[in-house]
């Protein structure tokens, strides 16, 4: 049994603590260190916001896919292999000229891993968790996003296993761009709602 103060018997340096934990688990056959390496590698190099960006770019390019995405994002993302751990139920919400969606998890830091990878530090920060629901406009202003008063903000507090993906507005001047070129404009923050999609570079 554990009380709530086991840490008082352990080093304060988390690196030492993790090392001890990994060693104990390894010796008991409860973990294979090579599997830890593989999990780190996967989230450092394979699973990231490019997956969500592909979904958004396809929605921008393919009206039928967009309709399916808004109707049942879990199934639509599954088509693209972007469903899985911490993202088994997905809802996509679409920004427009007068509506802006913003995703937060006030109680912990729920985040659509299969679409965006692991969350950035600011998403997990106490400042973001506490403020996004009570003062979303001042939060967005800190990200450089000043919204007009007539824009409605919809904040999604992820209190269950539903994970939210924001479909940002498609930038002007992107007609005819291929999905890969479009995906390059879709930033991580634009899919959380703390940013907009990038403008395409002006052509010479």
């Amino acid at each position: 049994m554990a009380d709530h103060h086991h840490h008082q018997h352990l080093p304060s340096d988390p690196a030492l603590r993790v090392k001890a934990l990994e060693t104990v688990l390894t010796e008991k056959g409860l973990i294979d260190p090579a599997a830890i390496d593989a999990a780190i590698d996967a989230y450092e190099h394979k699973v990231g916001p490019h997956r969500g960006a592909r979904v958004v770019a396809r929605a921008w390019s393919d009206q039928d896919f967009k309709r399916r995405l808004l109707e049942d994002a879990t199934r639509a993302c599954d088509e693209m292999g972007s469903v899985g751990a911490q993202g088994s139920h997905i809802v996509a919400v679409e920004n427009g000229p007068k509506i802006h969606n913003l995703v937060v998890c006030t109680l912990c830091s729920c985040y659509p891993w299969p679409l965006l990878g692991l969350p950035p530090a600011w998403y997990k920060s106490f400042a973001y968790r506490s403020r996004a629901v009570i003062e979303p406009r001042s939060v967005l202003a800190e990200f450089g996003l000043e919204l007009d008063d007539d824009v409605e903000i919809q904040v999604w507090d992820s209190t269950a296993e539903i994970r939210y993906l924001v479909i940002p507005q498609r930038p002007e001047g992107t007609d005819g761009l291929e999905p890969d070129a479009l995906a390059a404009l879709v930033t991580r923050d634009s899919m959380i709602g703390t940013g907009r999609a990038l403008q395409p570079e002006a052509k010479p």
Partner: protein
Amino acid sequence: MNGIHDMGGMHGFGPIELEANEPVFHETWEGRVYGISRAMTRPDGFNGDLGRYTREIMPPDLYLRSSYYERWLWGFEWALLHFGSMTLDELKAGEGSKAASPRNDALTADQVSATISHKMPSDRAIDTKAGYAVGDRVRAKNLNPSHHTRLPRYARGKTGTVRLHHGAHVLPDSHAQGQGENPEHLYTVAFTAKELWGEDASPRDLVMLDLWESYLEPV
């Protein structure tokens, strides 16, 4: 529980600190914590809802001065000690007891990628009909349990409108306590900012929360 983790609407945490070109893990040990969470053989009784609860029961001052992966580490330590996967003496020594024969069924490196795309749906088929329909007005109950719940304090007692119905999902309150999945219908409920924060709030803004049937009452 009305814990320090329930921080929606709090003041005093300062500006949001942004970091350009942020790495996935800032320290090597953070990656190890994350990897352990993905690769370890979980003890019977452990589940994701309990995992959240283990971080909520940290002493509040420790919670606030710990980083995200420090809180994860604390929670895993707590759970593995609680369920007897290891002892505090073993953890202090940094070595497992020599007496026990190790298990040989841990996840292997080549199995990891399958876990990433492995779906773990929390929806369940239940016989109970949904009590509410999209468009219904509902009030979040004023519940103050001392155990795990996903009804934040800022929404309690507030009235909103059902926006989405997700079918029935595992109830975290029950699941985290080891009392079974007890699935209930789950709804996204839209609350106006004025309802949540009073007359000074923006007249246009909404906050949506995913709330289970037993969190709600009809208006």
